[in-house]
């Protein structure tokens, strides 16, 4: 038996970062205390998730489950559950948060606030990936939003306020729709059964009139689509990613975008199977539009960060395409691709941050010849760019090929078109690589190559890129059972402790 099973380990995953965040604030007078607290907290959380991953990834059903009454008057419960999918997502979150802390090691001003906000975001994201009660989910969903708003708005680049407000309004508009929908779902379920509850396990049994189901699904969908983001509600993303501080971009691209996809998988599809299945072709069209449209726009960008931001939209298009294909291989590919994208794009954003620190510009036209000045950094940059454009053997390829293989078996045309998007990916990525690495060196002041701390960030990322590219089964096996259950339309395996 798991020695940790007596601990409320899921709550620990959520509230430990919050405690760390408060610690950062309380220990403000101590110089540099906050960064060590942040590193320690994220490290502990990562160790926990890693431990869970190693011990629990082969098990079936809910690996961990917590359920307590919370606001019983409205049937709101504090229900947390972790299956293979949540496990993978929490692992990714915990890992990227360490990266985020390390790359903002020398952040200024207000490092204590910065790190406590980072930890607050971790708390929110963990909550989103673990909650099984809709109100709890919504709560964490909003908790994620607010610290990110401040991260962008306070520590961002030149147009940070515009970007922060845009990000906030887009996401909030979507999530308010979701709030409306979940309340009406709650009322509907209560009227039907007399059991007023926000528990996901209860609500999936609601009989929704088809017309209303479309509206409710649409509201959930908009909330998630904004987060993913799908064309045409993606325009917050380039601004937010570009203006955010490096850690913010890493978290945004690496994790926050995945919460949208996760929401669709965990809530959107199980709650509204009818409209969800009927909307798969729409999803596919949006995904394909994203793949091409965003890749096309990415080519025109001058700002390296913005280019990578648009590439995120294109990559998430692949993820959504796998979802739309709706079979085991494609779905597994989608989930794998979420992890892949988190790692590659996280790495690329970190690297642009490092380059920005040295060159004081992110404009491709003003960079160039970096290989001469900082060969090690250049090699890493090339490596991650290749991963991003889907070179086989590196991580993005495995995800993409699973998605494409899965999609082709059911929808050949979608897959064939999406494959065309791969060329587009090569076009913009190579433009970026050429602009940054090749060409004559501009300026002649000497730069320091990769520092130890930066290497500490990049080497694990690079190892993961290779690992995911060569042996993705490690990360695919935990999600197999959740995906199968999802495909069967049954969401909940037997639950220890029982459901309300």
């Amino acid at each position, binding site marked *: 038996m798991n020695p940790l099973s007596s601990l409320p380990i899921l709550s620990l995953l959520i509230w430990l970062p919050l405690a760390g965040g408060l610690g950062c604030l309380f220990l403000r007078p101590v110089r540099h205390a906050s960064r060590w607290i942040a590193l320690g907290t994220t490290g502990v959380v990562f160790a926990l998730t890693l431990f869970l991953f190693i011990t629990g990834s082969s098990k079936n059903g809910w690996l961990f489950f917590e359920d307590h009454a919370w606001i019983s008057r409205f049937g709101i419960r504090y229900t947390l559950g972790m299956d293979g999918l949540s496990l993978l997502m929490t692992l990714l979150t915990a890992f990227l948060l360490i990266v985020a802390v390390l790359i903002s090691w020398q952040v200024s001003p207000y490092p204590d606030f910065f790190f406590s906000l980072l930890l607050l975001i971790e708390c929110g994201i963990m909550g989103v990936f673990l909650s099984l009660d809709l109100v709890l989910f919504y709560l964490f969903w909003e908790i994620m939003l607010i610290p990110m708003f401040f991260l962008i708005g306070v520590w961002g680049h030149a147009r940070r306020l515009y970007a922060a407000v845009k990000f906030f309004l887009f996401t909030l508009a979507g999530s308010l729709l979701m709030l409306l929908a979940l309340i009406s779902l709650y009322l509907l379920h209560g009227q039907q059964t007399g059991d007023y509850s926000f528990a996901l396990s209860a609500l999936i049994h609601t009989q929704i009139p088809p017309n209303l189901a479309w509206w409710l699904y649409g509201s959930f969908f908009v909330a998630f689509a904004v987060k993913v983001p799908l064309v045409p509600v993606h325009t917050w993303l380039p601004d937010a990613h570009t203006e955010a501080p490096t850690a913010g971009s890493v978290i945004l691209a690496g994790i926050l975008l995945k919460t949208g996809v996760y929401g669709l998988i965990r809530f959107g599809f199980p709650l509204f199977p009818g409209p969800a299945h009927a909307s798969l072709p729409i999803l596919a069209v949006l995904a394909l539009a994203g793949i091409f449209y965003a890749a096309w726009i990415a080519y025109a960008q001058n700002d390296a960060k913005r280019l990578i931001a648009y590439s995120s939209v294109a990559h998430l298009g692949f993820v959504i395409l796998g979802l739309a294909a709706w079979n085991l291989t494609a779905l597994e590919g989608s989930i794998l691709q979420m992890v892949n994208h988190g790692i590659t794009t996280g790495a690329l954003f970190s690297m642009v941050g490092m380059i920005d620190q040295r060159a004081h510009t992110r404009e491709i036209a003003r960079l160039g010849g970096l290989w001469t000045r900082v060969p090690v950094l250049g090699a890493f940059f090339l490596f991650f760019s290749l991963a991003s454009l889907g070179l*086989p053997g590196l991580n993005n390829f495995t995800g993409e090929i699973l998605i494409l293989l899965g999609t082709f078996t059911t929808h050949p045309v979608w897959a064939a078109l999406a*494959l065309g998007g791969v060329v587009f990916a090569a*076009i913009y990525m190579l433009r970026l690589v050429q602009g940054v690495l090749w060409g004559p060196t501009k300026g002649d002041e000497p730069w320091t190559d990769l520092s130890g701390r930066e290497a500490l960030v990049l080497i694990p990322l690079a190892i993961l890129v290779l690992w995911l590219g060569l042996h993705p089964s490690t990360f695919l096996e935990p999600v197999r059972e959740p995906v199968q259950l999802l495909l069967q339309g049954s969401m909940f395996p037997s639950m220890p402790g029982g459901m309300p």
Partner: protein
Amino acid sequence: MTDKTLFLIPLLPLLCGALNVLFGMRLPRQLSQAIAVGGVASSTVLTLVLWPLSAGAGTHVTLFTWLDSGTLHVPVEILFDPLSASMTLMVTGVSTLIHLYAIGYMHRDADYARFFALLNLFVFAMLTIVLADNLLLLFLGWEGVGFCSYALIGFWYREEKNASAGRKAFLVTRVGDVFLGIALLWLFKLFGTLSISGINAGASQLAPHILTLLVVLLLLGACGKSAQLPLMTWLPDAMAGPTPVSALIHAATMVTAGVYLLCRLFPLVSLSSTGLALISAVGAVTAFYAATCALAQREIKKVLAYSTMSQVGYMFLGVGTGAVAGSMFHLFTHAFFKALLFMGAGCIIHLCGEENDIFKMGGLRKKSPLVFWLFLAGALCLAGAPLSSGFFSKDGLLAAAYAHGTPFYLTIYILGAFTALLTAIYTFRLLYLVFGGTSRFTGDLHGLPKLMTWPLIPLALIALFSGVLNLPEIFGGHQWLDHLLHAAGSGESHPLSHMQEWTLAGIATALFAIGWAVAHWRYSRFTPAQEKKAVLFFLHGWQADRLVHATLITPFAFLSRLFWQGADLAVIDGILESLGQGCQSAGERLRTLTTGRVSSYLASLAWGLLLFMLFFLLQVVQG
């Protein structure tokens, strides 16, 4: 020694490449070079040692499972059969010689570690293509060579032009890769597996139209890598890379990967006669196209690049006629003599102090006889001089086309034969301009490092005499390669009578002689000709680049800007921003309601009271 040792063949170069990637710059130059050469050389030795494993149906080994999801099961598996074994031997052997040559060639470049690492990685990727028994693994190698080619073409990245050439190569081949990828996805859907042996075994159950479509997709994929029409524009530009790279990647190995792919999947490809016809048509037209372009080139490496394209076209032509062994034979001989030619060209360029233009050379025969003889050996093979290897291999392919006897294949034969004439012309043009006459070169001749010449000597011998590998019976041979590769599959054979074979050989000899004569008449004495329009047309590869630029690149860039500025910023953000503006202006207007004067507030309060009163009154009246 277990079968798994076979994996060492590709993994040794990978290991050595990785060593050079990680520690190359910290190692002394000699050690770094030794690692690189050692990796490739040990692969060669290993291939020879393990050769017996390829006997019969070959050896099939699995290392571990790469991808596993649902019905998808992709193991890392290799198949060491006669086809892949012979190709492996050629790749490793030629690579070893080229690596040695590269040590000499790069002796003054400070970035040797990157160069050798990439070269080793390339060999790994190429061997993966060759040995893979799984299409996805093959695709890994396929993209891998694409990347290495990209990085090596742009090796001297400080010049924007070189980096752009690399990028172009990567992108154009990737367009082909997309088609290969679609074929791969489709094959998985049809067969539920990506194993090459499995696909070849089950191919006969497919409907003809699906087969044809598959072959077209595979052909397009192969065209990308092998620089065949219409995806050929990248190869001439790829000459921006260092010469060993051109020799290894753009002559001997990578560009022939397309041919190899078609041969590997020949049991599938051969089932579609339309597909086969298309393959040979593409091959013949490319061969002709490239030969015409080679006639007008001024840069020595570009002449060779176009000749490579042309010779690979021959190989395609051969695959299309069903002569797998013949194509592989030409692939091998071509690899030998073209590598030789490129390395010779590297020596020439080095001698002339990085001068590329053949119009500015001349008279090198007396100045560097060794290089002349080496280059001549390669050139004779290329031009198809009787009894040289190129003569046998090229003749074999043309004979196979002729043997079909249908009007279509006769046309192919005629086109091929005419191309052979052009080949002889441009080869001797090159020889005369570089070595003949008097020197037009201004400046001092540089010395050559030993390592740049002596790897060429064995290569020259192999190139000249590799014809014995598949010597036709009329010359007393046993067609050894044909028998070896019999298992790889071959189309329906159309045996020719000895009389016909002698006739075809005679025609080939005559074409060679005519070509030599024409070149002698025109180029034995250099006359600077004015640039005619036709010459320029051929010089720029029939303006293919300009066409691509006008029809694809310019619209792409334009649309890119349009989508960004027009759609994303103007329309989507515009709509949302106008929504925000609307809210704001509504607020502005509502703002005037708050006059700030107590009296107006009180008045509105009174009016509200009145409304309430009237409402109650109304209720009273109604009730």
